[in-house]
């Protein structure tokens, strides 16, 4: 694998680490299987790209994208907690609706950002080539998001959110309004995913309505893969595992596609991902690692 391909894989891995953190919030913290992700990722890209081409400041456009994602997450949560629609189905409804909405936002299937000023434009002024500077900038961002999330999940509010996912009846008995926490948590989760979508569009130079296909599976692959390689007992370990899982997944995919012997092509990506996630889920000890049950913990 060339350095270029390696750095490219790390760059995409870091971008999808944000998706993985979002998926960790919904699937693991809130235990809310959320497929909205497949719609909120391209939603972030669409909002951001559409705003940038109309001349809006790229930072504002990226912020707007994250807010749009939060809105999408809240719609799914609302369908579930208020209208009592099964969580999985609620998220599929939002995802499907977002496909049309994304087309409406862009007005066409894709929006190119070539030549536009993006949040990554300042990197061009550095002495480093973009393919080196971009992964570094993303790494800084991902670490900041991770630390913020760690802090949040260990706060009183974050603890209440975790309790909402683990034992909602007990949470309510402790005065926690579980509906509000599900709404808030889903908003945060999808804001992160939409942020990733906005950054993805800006680094790739275009937003496309089909960007979202399989994003949820990639996010899950990162979360589950991360759990397979390390102990995720404490929150800071779990969030670290999401990031590691995402990068390792991209590296593995890049390695597989770059090995001519296997005869794999880019179009096999989703199939490989599905197989990997299935394997990770059925392999014993992955979802509930025994090591986290036998050792005492004091570092949460």
């Amino acid at each position, binding site marked *: 694998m060339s350095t270029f391909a390696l750095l490219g894989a790390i760059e995409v891995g870091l971008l999808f680490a944000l998706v993985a953190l979002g998926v960790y919030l919904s699937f693991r913290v809130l235990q809310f299987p959320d497929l909205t992700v497949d719609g909120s990722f391209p939603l972030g890209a669409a909002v951001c790209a559409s705003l940038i081409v109309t001349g809006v400041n790229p930072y504002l456009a990226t912020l707007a994208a994250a807010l749009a994602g939060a809105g999408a997450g809240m719609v799914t949560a609302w369908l579930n907690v208020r209208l009592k629609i099964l969580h999985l189905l609620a998220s599929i409804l939002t995802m499907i609706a977002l496909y049309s909405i994304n087309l409406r936002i862009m007005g066409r299937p894709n929006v190119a950002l070539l030549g536009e000023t993006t949040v990554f434009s300042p990197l061009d002024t550095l002495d480093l080539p973009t393919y080196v500077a971009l992964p570094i900038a993303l790494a800084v961002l991902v670490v900041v998001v991770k630390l913020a999330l760690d802090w949040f999940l260990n*706060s*009183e509010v974050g603890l209440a959110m975790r309790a909402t996912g*683990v034992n909602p*009846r007990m*949470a*309510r*008995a*402790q*005065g926690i309004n579980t509906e509000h926490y599900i709404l808030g948590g889903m908003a945060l989760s999808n804001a992160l995913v939409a942020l990733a979508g906005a950054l993805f569009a800006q680094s790739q130079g275009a937003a496309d309505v089909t960007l979202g296909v399989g994003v949820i599976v990639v996010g899950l692959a990162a979360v589950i893969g991360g759990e397979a390689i390390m102990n995720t007992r404490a929150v800071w370990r779990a969030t670290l595992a999401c990031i590691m899982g995402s990068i390792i997944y991209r590296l593995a995919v890049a390695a597989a596609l770059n090995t001519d012997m296997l005869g794999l092509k880019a179009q096999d990506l989703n199939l490989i991902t599905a197989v990997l996630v299935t394997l990770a889920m059925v392999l014993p000890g992955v979802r509930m690692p025994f090591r986290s049950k036998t050792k005492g913990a004091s*570092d949460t």
Partner: protein
Amino acid sequence: MIKVNQLAVTFNRGTPMETPAMRGIDLNVPEGDFVTVIGSNGAGKSTFLNALAGELRPDSGTILIDDQDVTSWPTAKRAGLVARVFQDPLGGSCADLTIEENLALANARGKRRSLGGSVGSRLRDEFKAKIAHLNLGLENRLGDRMDLLSGGQRQAVSLLMAAMQPMKILLLDEHTAALDPKTAAFVLKLTREIVTERNLTTVMVTHSMRQALEIGNRTVMLHEGRVVLDVRDQERDGLQIEDLLHMFERVRGSQLDDDALLLS
């Protein structure tokens, strides 16, 4: 402290499965009373407790706690008034969280939760002192996950969590039913201590007639969603388990066939 007026609820109303779980329960519990609630399966004990906690909205009737009408309040809103210990040792705590995180959750009951850290060093010391009172050696295991504890230890911690913040009423839902006799006795002793120490108004549902007569100062028997017996203090002291059994048979108009009540 608790005033329950004509409380009624029917499950699966309008279907062949229609079950009236409460058919007009009236109960007035003054401050400091410790009421044990007994009754056979389906008598409405759990439904009654769920209604007090807010997990269940009654079809009709009112619930007043501390002179406030809480009938339409959801569970979370009542949490400042009501503390609860569940029957399932796993039900009252979060298995995936550590002991200190569970205590921190309970410590914020009825208060506004902030974005500040949930377990600071000051709070940890406070938890340590409180949990040391249990004499279970848990004071050095605050960072352990809750699911590492035994059922009895979990119920003891659940009691501690319930007593963490001031409350108006304490609800105990057969909280010793899932424990072995020795552990059950320990948890019961702890319950007595906490209730006496703080003079708590308590409602405890139990399946054991002996427990019902031994603990607290008042016993209420429910049958088919109604209060069929309400005895307190001296009147109750004179009662034996056999007397309760006779009463049961009388209200049912048949021989008692619920072995669980006889044997426990």
